[in-house]
């Protein structure tokens, strides 16, 4: 089945081949497993970028294909990170506490160990009690299930409320943005149980893997991220290739028409919203162990808008566009803001990229929206000379099509 699917979708095959080649070359050049041309920190950057590509893929499914401009998917990404972070931090602190307590003359009881871990973790927020939400933190398996369950359930509940009352378009965007803001503000509190604005830290250390150097760990995570991206891409490509994809694009272009065909639009929206939230959560769970730290600032509403920016620049409504956009923009951003880009001497003024990059990004985003709504992916069209449908002048981009039809109806 996969064979026929792949042959019917050559772009997926190309993508997987490119990804495999990329993974192979990075592995060979990295410090951890190869010749060491690529530093460990850059391997981590690449691994993180792959995770961002995965969440961009989710964003493309929900926005580019279904037309729901969600400004909340980075919140799901962050939640996934928090869920895995809880286990990483708990297990790591547990290892430290156990080893320090083992020097005591009397072996420690379980409750003494738990108290000591609580002290270590929550000391910064002036507490030592474990909040209820850490109930499963000692179990990797349960916490991994929460990586899927927490973003999934939140998306399910929020989506059910929002879609049921037929909130659409920009209203939905604003509502999702409010959800993100609410979540971020909640996590900023010290008594949220997740260490307030300190966030969770020390996530780069895998508990029980102290003997493995970071160089090797970074390669492992890089592989895992690449595998997740490949699976996510396959899944997304499979979903959008069939009739399901037809329905999604139909919802994007004319929701009412899909409804009159007998499809429960709300059900489909809820389904895709929840599934993409779960993908985002998984991406986050892979991202934050490589980043080492997660705090509420990561899920500020602006992060979710950046996600939309990546997808738009890459080209929405095509899966490889989202991936290209996320990789391109995030790598270029980190190059410019990381201080590596040379300053531009204009004679009367020296342009420091650290200060000016965001302005360039913002304006180029405006330009892309205005002049190249197909994004970087549109270049592929030029190259492959894909014929565009005659739409009698106006471009029917995602989100715009429905509106034009609505106007026509009146």
């Amino acid at each position: 089945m996969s064979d026929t699917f792949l042959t019917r979708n050559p772009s997926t095959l190309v993508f997987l081949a490119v990804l495999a080649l990329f993974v192979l070359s990075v592995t060979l050049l990295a410090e951890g497993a190869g010749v060491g041309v690529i530093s460990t920190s850059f391997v981590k950057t690449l691994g993180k970028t792959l995770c961002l590509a995965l969440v961009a893929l989710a964003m493309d499914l929900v926005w580019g294909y279904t037309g729901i401009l969600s400004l909340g998917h980075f919140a799901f990404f962050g939640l996934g990170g928090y869920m895995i972070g809880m286990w990483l931090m708990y297990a790591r602190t547990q290892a430290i506490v156990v080893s320090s307590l083992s020097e005591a003359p009397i072996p420690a009881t379980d409750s003494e160990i738990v108290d000591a871990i609580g002290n270590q973790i929550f000391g910064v927020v002036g507490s030592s009690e474990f909040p209820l939400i850490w109930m499963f933190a000692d179990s990797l398996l349960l916490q991994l299930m929460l990586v899927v369950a927490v973003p999934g359930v939140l998306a399910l509940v929020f989506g059910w409320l929002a879609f049921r009352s037929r909130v659409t378009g920009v209203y939905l965007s604003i509502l999702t943005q409010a959800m993100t803001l609410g979540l971020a503000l909640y996590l900023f509190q010290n008594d949220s149980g997740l260490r307030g604005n300190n966030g969770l830290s020390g996530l780069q250390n895998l508990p029980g893997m102290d003997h493995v150097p970071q160089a090797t760990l970074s390669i492992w995570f890089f592989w895992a991220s690449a595998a997740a991206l490949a699976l996510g891409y396959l899944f997304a490509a499979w979903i959008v290739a069939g009739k399901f994809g037809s329905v999604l694009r139909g919802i994007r272009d004319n929701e009412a028409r899909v409804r009159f065909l007998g499809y429960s639009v709300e059900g489909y929206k809820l389904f895709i919203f929840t599934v993409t939230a779960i993908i985002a959560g998984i991406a986050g769970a892979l991202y934050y162990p490589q980043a080492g730290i997660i705090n509420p600032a990561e899920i500020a509403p602006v992060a979710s808008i950046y996600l939309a920016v990546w997808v738009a620049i890459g080209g929405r409504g095509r899966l490889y566009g989202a991936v290209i956009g996320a990789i391109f923009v995030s790598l270029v951003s980190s190059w410019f803001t990381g201080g590596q880009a040379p300053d531009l001497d204009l004679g009367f003024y020296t342009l420091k990229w650290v200060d000016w990059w965001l302005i360039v990004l913002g304006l180029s985003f405006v330009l892309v929206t205005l002049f190249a709504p197909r994004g970087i992916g549109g270049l592929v069209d030029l190259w492959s000379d894909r014929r565009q449908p005659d739409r009698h002048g106006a471009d029917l981009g995602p989100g715009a099509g429905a509106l034009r039809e609505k106007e026509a109806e009146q």
Partner: protein
Amino acid sequence: MRTTLLAGLMVLLSSLAALAQQVPEPAPVQSILQEQSALIQKSSRKTIAPAIAALAESGLPQAQAVLEAWQVKALWMRISDGMFFRGEKLEGQTYRLFDFDTGQAVGDVAKSDLKQIKPNSGIRALIATALVQFQLSDPDPSRREEALLAIERAPAGALLAPLRASIPGETDPVLKVRKMRIEQLLTIAHGTDEARRVATIQSLSGDLGLDVRATLNPLVSTQLRAFAGDIPAGLNVARRVAPGAGALSPDAAYDLLVAAKLAPARLSSDEIRTTLAAHIEGGRVGGVPLAQLNKEDARTRAYAALVEAGQAPARVSAEQITQSLNAHVFAEIYDEPSAVMTHAAQAALTSIATQVAVGQAVDLTLDALSLASIYFLAAIGLAITFGVMGVINMAHGEFIMMGAYTGYVVQQVIPNHTVSILVAVPLAFAVTFAAGVAMERLVIRWLYNRPLETLLATFGISIALQQLAKNIFGTQARPLTAPGWLDGAWIINDVVSISYIRIAIFMLALIFLGVFLFIMRRTRLGLETRAVTQNRAMAGSMGINPERVNMLTFGLGSGIAGIAGVAIGLFAKVTSELGSDYIVQSFMTVVVGGVGNIWGTLAGATMIGFFQKGVEWLNPSNTLAAQTYMIVFIIVFIQFRPRGIIALKGRAAGD
């Protein structure tokens, strides 16, 4: 060598000067000073009290002059004979000395022959208190007021008598009222006549002043104490407390017994572990292998073995604790011994509490109104661009920020705050109007009917503008100072008050509402805007230029955001993130209220303002939580009224 010579010369000179002066007869104040000389010279906060008291209670009119001189570091001692004088600095290093008793100048003396008595701040405070009784009847009203302030800061029983004495002679009616009030408070706190104190308490019952509560609260302060057997007579019992029932847990009750040395201390698990660790013998403690001691019951067994062997003190058992608790009585005892007093104070505080609750409700309402007007201000520009035109402008917050920075820049040029604000308001409007028009011409007009893309494009502008502001003004907050006449607050009583700046913002919100209604309903632009919004093609065919109308309307909405920015900048920190703090709330305000209706925006702002203040009141420590709950509330609210509080109905709603 030269220094010694010089010193010798000086001594000679000074003794000559002393000789030249008639040594005055020991006068009354000087004699007191001489009696206290040692203490005065030591000048220590801890020991100085008798010296000050001696002066203050001497009843001598000159004592005030001494204290005042002392307070301002003008009290000097002549080294040669230890006499104290007031010194006035002349040219060079010489001082002219004045006698306290006569007030006469007694001569000019070099500084080296004098010792300055320098009171530290603690001593100065004591002097100030001592001076109060003199100042209370000072001819200068401002001095009398200072004295009253000093009493309020440090009410002392000793001041009651001089205060009472000064009331009949007080000529200033305002000061007289204040004196009488302070006299009442002092009477309550330090009076000796119980009946008079109770009467005073009753007369102040229901008074909202913080000072009254501050005076009454110590009277009803209690301490939880434990007694073996019955409570001794003579104690003023507030209430008996049974351990385990209500606020007092059995653990806390037992700790109280331990603290009062009425029961043996319990052993903490730390102590037990230490004891166990001290008795490790051959890998075992009390016969239990070490490895097993990571379980609580094994530790108990091991410790019990140690106790049996007499190597450790016995643990307090649960039965013992119960017994101890049963054998004792717990009660809250008033610090104030007189039951009559505590009863009266309690009754007065209860009646005050009722009044305070009412006051707080009023205060909360004012707070909520003021928050609502801030949200309204931030959202009204959006009510035009988003509500009327349907354009999602994510850079709206940055227009607010631009307005605030305009105000800041104007203040750098025009130092007068009143003038600068008056200049800043139209200028902010002009700047953001221009920015809005530019944005509409360059970006938004290409994206009409593509709302999601408008959202993203304007977001791009938003991050660019924010970063630009950061590059120009830096990341630290810039001050935008309100004119002096907006400082302070309208204080209705100690519970209800509202700052003038919030009143001004409330007024501004009302003005904006009026301007909006006027423009939309009474002007050509308003008519054309509504026409273009409802049917662009039709409006165009009737001679309206939709391009121009859209441009002007968008400029108007942006300009109003700029003015709102000046207002918000007056009380918030002006940073590049100022706008993004408000953008989500602003959109929520418009959406919750009902798009396309200014009354809806008003209702939305009011609802969000009241809800947020309400949650803050329930959970005052946590304003972040209030915002979270507010957002959850809004999401749920949208379920029931998807089109907002004031919704357009029927086909016009455009479903």
